[in-house]
């Protein structure tokens, strides 16, 4: 088996130790990918929890503002539509895509792929799903939105009473789920795919 470092393109063979031990590139010290079994159940649990958290964070307000007997709550989608109403279409689109569309797509694709692989079959559209999952990583920004909620709440502190809603806790859970999910290597799924379809590596 040959290993090629993703960072510096150096070809090497795995050292004699157990192949599951993490190995580092001889030249650039970047961690080398050594095929290992995918932990489908762990990943699926995180994806499903993430979906639940996603639904809650979008149905309950993230913050509620009250002043002079009036109340106003914000959810993510309300923020998007308010920004669009004010003519800031670009802001609305960026917020919608980075904090709603992409995280949801990511969780659904994970669920779809993992459920099928658990049943030992390769789902339709597996390749496109995997490419999308890889591309999404840098563009979905739930964690940034979570921090933005806190900043916005503090900025309004002198104007009104700000109470955190259930949504913000769900957002926190969602951030954790997505974060942990990304710690699993997508290449493990490719390895599994190879085994299921009988494709062989060099």
């Amino acid at each position, binding site marked *: 088996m040959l290993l090629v*470092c993703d960072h510096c393109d150096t070809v090497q063979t795995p050292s004699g130790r157990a192949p599951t031990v993490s190995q580092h590139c001889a030249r650039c010290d970047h961690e080398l990918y050594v095929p290992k079994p995918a932990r489908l159940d762990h990943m699926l649990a995180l994806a499903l929890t993430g979906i639940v958290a996603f639904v809650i964070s979008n149905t309950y307000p993230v913050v509620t503002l009250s002043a002079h007997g*009036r109340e106003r709550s914000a959810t993510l989608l309300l923020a998007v539509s308010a920004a669009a109403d004010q003519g800031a279409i670009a802001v609305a689109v960026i917020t919608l895509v980075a904090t709603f569309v992409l995280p949801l797509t990511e969780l659904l694709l994970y669920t779809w792929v993992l459920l099928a692989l658990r049943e030992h079959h390769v789902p339709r559209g597996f390749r496109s799903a995997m490419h999308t999952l890889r591309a999404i990583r840098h*563009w979905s920004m739930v964690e940034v939105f979570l921090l933005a909620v806190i900043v916005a709440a*503090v*900025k*309004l502190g002198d104007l009104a009473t700000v109470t955190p809603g259930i949504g913000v806790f769900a957002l926190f859970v969602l951030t954790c789920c997505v974060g942990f999910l990304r710690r699993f290597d997508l290449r493990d799924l490719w390895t599994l795919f190879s085994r299921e379809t009988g494709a062989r590596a060099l």
Partner: protein
Amino acid sequence: MNVPARAMDLGLVSCRGCSLVSRIHRGKHEATHCPRCGKLLATRKPGGLTRAWAFLLAAMFLYIPANVLPIMHTSRLTEHRSDTILSGVVHLWEGGSWDLSLIVFVASIVIPVVKMAALFVLFFTAHRGHSGHVRERVYLLHILELVGHWSMLDVFVVALLVTLVKFGAFADVEPESGVIAFAGVVILTLLASSSFDPRLLWDAQVAKRSARHIEPAGAG
């Protein structure tokens, strides 16, 4: 010193989509796709540095309006104010939340500036084929990719403020054009760092080492 073999030199290619190692036939001009994931195989990211430079330069130009133009307008009874990125940080600091203003300062000012400067240095050194401190430069690129998207913070804050502050007659927040320019800067720097291939940095080292290797042989 022994020059480690690159996949490129052995006619191998590691797929960018799924990391499967395949053979690529040099001299054959038709495109080869990865047998496993179907992605187009290329020894280095296509477009090379040109694409990365284009995104970075666009981001740098857009950075000027992003900071000069106000990002939002707040009106409260008699008070009207337009905030730029920087004045928003100052306002937050004066309001007593130094900790949060520090976070916003880092996310909106430090990260974009450092990222653009660092990418400039990376692209420039890769362009000139510098071969020193490669490991450190690759590490820098890695860090930049991890923190880059936090700069989007201010864009989301504006969207949230617009929603929350709809208290009819006595307060209103409107987004202004600066925020779009700023979002553009963040997106462009993300594109710039993702279109840069870190292997180019190592290639320069290989080129230098093999040149050194050949010299004495040529003399003798």
